[in-house]
């Protein structure tokens, strides 16, 4: 039996020494069949990214709303003049306005007309609001030149009660403090949700990576035995993770932005004073745009760590 001549030896390939291990392996995708992480993973990532986009947008909107409200109300006080006699109440109201207008800290003063007060209270008091049966205090809206400290508020009250003994000063920020606290709690809740969703994303990618590696264990072993490095194998898997995570992130971001736009429309339709401050600024959109990027990076980091640890257990 004749033996065909051996073909020429291929040119010496560079040895994979410790130094060349760090070099970029060529055409990593050709070394292994493209492993699939798992059919559901892009969709799971899409759902989780959508939830993060919604939670992030909600948290940022709440922060903006709280800041706007605080800025509006921290430099304003309300003065009440409690006097059942209407004539006397008007007279003392005017006196209080005169005192307030003389203060350096005060920018503007507006005595709220009784008809406006009656209209505000009518939904709760009915016709009693306009009948005069229920005494309604005179209300004065005072806008300050800047945010006033509690001591300055107290000084205003002292000066005012010297001229109008029945006057009472309420810093608007005080009675909104529980609202601020609730808004802050909601922001923390949004952050907590984002952290939990990130954890869930990492867990899903971890499971999918382990399953994918187990599914291709035989091939991975062959690659190892033929001289393939962990880095070459990991790169192939990470290519799949990147593709699937990017698909899920784009899909999830689109869905999340759609939901945020719809919610924005709903709140805008309320036309309520407080919700007007809850819009998203340019920097907020940048934060939201970073969500899918962060999701993909998290998936890559998780997969890389999972695969590296699993390969380390193989010889």
């Amino acid at each position, binding site marked *: *039996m004749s*033996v*065909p*001549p*051996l*073909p*020429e*030896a*291929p*040119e010496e*390939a*560079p*040895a*994979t*020494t*410790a130094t*060349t*291990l760090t*070099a970029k*392996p*060529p*055409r990593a995708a*050709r*070394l*292994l*069949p493209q492993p699939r992480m798992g059919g559901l993973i892009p969709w799971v990532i899409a759902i989780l990214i959508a939830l993060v986009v919604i939670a992030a947008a909600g948290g940022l909107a709440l922060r903006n709303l709280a800041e706007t409200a605080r800025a509006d109300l921290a430099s304003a006080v309300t003065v009440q003049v409690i006097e059942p006699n209407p004539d006397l109440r008007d007279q003392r109201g005017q006196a209080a306005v005169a005192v307030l207008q003389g203060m350096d800290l005060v920018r503007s003063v507006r005595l709220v007309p009784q008809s406006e007060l009656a209209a505000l209270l009518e939904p709760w008091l009915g016709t009693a609001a306009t009948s005069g049966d229920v005494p309604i205090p005179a209300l004065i809206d005072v806008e300050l030149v800047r945010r006033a400290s509690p001591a300055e508020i107290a000084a205003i009250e002292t000066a005012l009660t010297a001229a109008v003994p029945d006057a009472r000063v309420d810093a608007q920020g005080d009675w909104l403090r529980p609202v601020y606290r609730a808004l802050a709690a909601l922001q923390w809740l949004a952050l907590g949700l984002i952290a939990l969703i990130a954890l869930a994303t990492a867990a899903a990618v971890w499971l999918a990576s382990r399953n994918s590696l187990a599914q291709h264990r*035989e*091939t991975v*072993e*062959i*690659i*190892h*035995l*033929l*001289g*393939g*490095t*962990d880095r*070459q194998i990991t790169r192939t898997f990470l290519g799949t993770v990147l593709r699937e995570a990017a698909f899920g992130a784009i899909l999830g971001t689109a869905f999340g932005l759609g939901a945020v736009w719809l919610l924005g429309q709903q709140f805008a339709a309320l036309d309520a004073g407080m919700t007007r401050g809850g819009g998203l600024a340019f920097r907020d959109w940048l934060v939201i745009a970073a969500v899918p990027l962060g999701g993909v990076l998290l998936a890559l980091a998780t997969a890389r760590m999972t695969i590296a640890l699993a390969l*380390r257990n193989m*010889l």
Partner: protein
Amino acid sequence: MNDRSAEIVKFDNVGLRYGTDPEVLSNLSFTLYPGSFYFLTGASGAGKTSLLKLLYLAQRPSRGAIRMFGQDLMTMPRERLPDLRQRLGVVFQNFRLVPHLTAFDNVALPLRLAGAPEARVLKAVSDMLEWVGLAHRGHAIPATLSGGEQQRVAIARAVIARPRMLIADEPTGNVDPDMALKLLRLFEALNNRVGTTVVVATHDVHLLKKVPDSLIMRLNKGELSDPTGALRYPPRPAAGPAAGPEREL
């Protein structure tokens, strides 16, 4: 004449056990020299495959010491194993072709893993497939190849990078006698012309007579015997001069 410093593999009192089972290999001490042709024989269950696993670095021993290409495997970090594995060619008992890759891509694997340029991969793999008579089957995936064709793909993959040591586990087990002889001639050609050290595990005693310069190692219940002086220094082949690094490549 062989040079002790050029030894390919040196086992020193090596033992191997799986888990807490009794040792499947015990007290193995031997040296393999460059350019030699070894047959590893023994009955089924004698430990041939386990010994080959140690040789192709799929297993670490439970005890003893192994040196390969002058490096101590016992203290070598696993990050450096690919470097050693790229100097080996292995024909696995069940071929272990990557099922999703074509015959061409399977044969190309060792070169691509070593970072060879694609133009050279193309030429070398085409030549190698021609050499094993499978040039027309390059695009076939393993599932569509016959047992003999798969075996030739596995052999082509094992020798494509001109390994310094070729390890074959029952390479003729699934082919007819004609093909078995042809494959053996391919190993001989590699051994004679390239200087590759060849280790062939087989239980086919007829095969041993086909390679006159070969050395025989016999495993019996995990222990090695030395019927041809293969384990002595210098190794004494059955006939002809001792193989060595000075053999013309």
